[in-house]
């Protein structure tokens, strides 16, 4: 085990090269609906229990099933209303179980990126080859069901290995060259995209995907009241919008339809969406579009600046 993975360098937030988003936007705003698939009776992983109760663990399973049976339509209606295309963090087994939901995403031209196979299958204990197979399966499944070349990755249930990022970048290249495997959502160290070092040397970045704004973290872990979540989202946005005058920032709202789409929580969420999209200088976009823009316009300058700040200009 390492003291740090060392996939990115220290890079102070101040005095970075300016990021200019399209049309002078201050904030690139994206919503990441996690569309997840949980098993009622998953195989045991020695390092992490899938459910707290013995199988069948209804309390956890049933509310997550609610997300698929009831929740998706509700959030989709809201995002449609505010002109937001989702960037879906997808448990790809859902393509097989509930293809109707994938169809709804396709009709909206939403992005699908990989969140593993099931959210009840963890990376812990997989050999490198096994993890590579799992990642390949997920990218191939997305392509088979949607024709999309998976750009991003969020490890299933945030379960990682030392090589998760390397493997995702490599498998993406093997399958689709530079069109796939270009960003990770697994790092929470910044409010702007940053270059990430992968062993293949591929141009690869970290995409801000805020766990602090993630509805499951907010509601289930931090136990925040729905209306206060709305306040948090507005404050988060306000500060990124203000700072975005100097250099473009990224705001992500990661959601789960078994959380935010419950009837007692949608009003507060809608208020936040209305507020954010009501600002003039917001680029309402997807994870892939932010990543591609950054790689094209900002990535090289970032690398140079990072090297410079760390006193080792290359």
């Amino acid at each position, binding site marked *: 085990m390492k003291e740090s993975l060392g996939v990115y360098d220290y890079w102070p937030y101040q005095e970075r090269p300016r990021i200019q988003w399209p049309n002078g936007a201050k904030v690139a705003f994206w919503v990441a609906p996690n569309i997840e698939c949980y*098993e*009622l*009776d998953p*195989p045991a*992983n*020695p390092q992490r229990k899938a459910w*707290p*109760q*013995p*199988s*069948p*663990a*209804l*309390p956890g*399973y*049933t*509310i*997550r*099933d*609610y997300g*698929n*049976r*009831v929740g*998706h*339509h*509700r959030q989709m209606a809201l995002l449609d209303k505010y002109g937001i295309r989702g960037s879906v963090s997808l448990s790809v*087994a859902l393509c*097989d*179980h*509930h*293809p*109707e*939901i994938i169809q709804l995403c396709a009709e909206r031209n939403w992005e699908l990126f990989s969140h593993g*196979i*099931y959210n009840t*299958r963890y990376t812990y*204990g*997989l*050999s490198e080859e*096994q993890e590579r*197979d*799992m990642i390949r*399966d997920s990218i191939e499944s997305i392509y088979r069901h949607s024709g999309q070349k998976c750009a991003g990755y969020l490890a299933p249930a945030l379960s990682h290995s030392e090589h998760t990022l390397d493997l995702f970048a490599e498998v993406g290249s093997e399958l689709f060259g530079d069109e796939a495997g270009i960003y990770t959502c697994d790092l929470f160290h910044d409010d702007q995209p940053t270059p990430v070092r992968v062993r293949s040397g591929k141009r690869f970045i970290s995409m801000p995907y805020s766990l602090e704004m993630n509805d499951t973290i907010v*509601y289930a872990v931090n*136990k925040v*009241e*729905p*209306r206060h979540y709305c306040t948090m989202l507005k404050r988060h946005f306000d500060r990124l919008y203000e700072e975005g005058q100097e250099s473009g920032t990224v705001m992500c709202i990661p959601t789960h339809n078994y959380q935010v789409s*419950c*009837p*007692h*929580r*949608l*009003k*507060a969420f809608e208020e936040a969406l209305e507020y954010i999209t009501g600002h003039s200088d917001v680029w309402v976009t997807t994870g892939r579009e932010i990543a591609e823009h950054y790689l094209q316009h900002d990535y090289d300058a970032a690398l140079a600046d990072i090297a410079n700040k760390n006193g080792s200009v290359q």
Partner: protein
Amino acid sequence: MSLDKEYLEYPKRSYGHDHDRFDWSMLTDRPPVTWPDNKRVAIWINTSLQFYPLNQRGLPFKVPNGMTMPYPDLRHFTLRDYGNRVGIYRLLKAFERFGVRPTFAINSQLARDTPYLLEQLQRFDAEFICHGWNMDHLHYGGQDEQEEAELVQRSVETLNSLIDTPVQGWLSPAKNQSWKTPDLLTANGIEYCCDWVNDDMPYAFKTDNGPLMMMPLSTELEDQFIIGQNLHSEDSWVEQIKDAFDFLLEESATQGGRMLALNLHPWMMGQPHRISSLETVLEYLMGHTETWNATAGDILQAFNAQTGK
């Protein structure tokens, strides 16, 4: 050492759910339902009456809101008991004041041991749901089948012997089940179950002994979940229930009748500092002309009549 290769095999990765208990469908794809008198939101006010034993075994896990301190945990035992002695009578008063027709989910042991309470509950033209034996007799995977069969039978028979109308509904303690629970329920004449909270409307469920209906009793709106586990304020609970009702009412305008299942615990909402919040909620829910307040069984009957069940 890496995991066995079976960890990356997915035998159930195919269309529908990863079990065969019920058919997969999205709520929006189902035919719209109309409630009696063209009401749009059916309100099911469920009150859970519970006995938490002091000598809990905690098998296979400690039930939520149960004893947490070393034996004898008088602190939690008596606070739960407060609900059955004091809190419930504040709730009953509120039900009377706002014209609520309640549904009572009751532990059978409590029904047996507190005849006065049961008599008072029966004055309400209410419906009774069997809430298992008590809050330390859980149903769980790996449980001895005979033990569970006896538990279900004893719970249903006991409650049936104490009330006039046969029990139709079942709510497991902690909404936890074994793989066999649904089969045991239908074997004992139960028609609907409230444990699977994966929907906002009733739906059909299969068992070895014939069909069962599922009546999802939302955990997310419960007092004990919002106030007790999430530590939200009473004011926020009121706001959340109102928001839920408003949302469902709006959704019903385009998608047909909706159901709001509100579960209450007298040991929580019956406290002097909380009862006014419940009154505020009841006044709001009952104050809408679109509201149809009914028991779980009546809602299910109206649903079945339209969906051909």
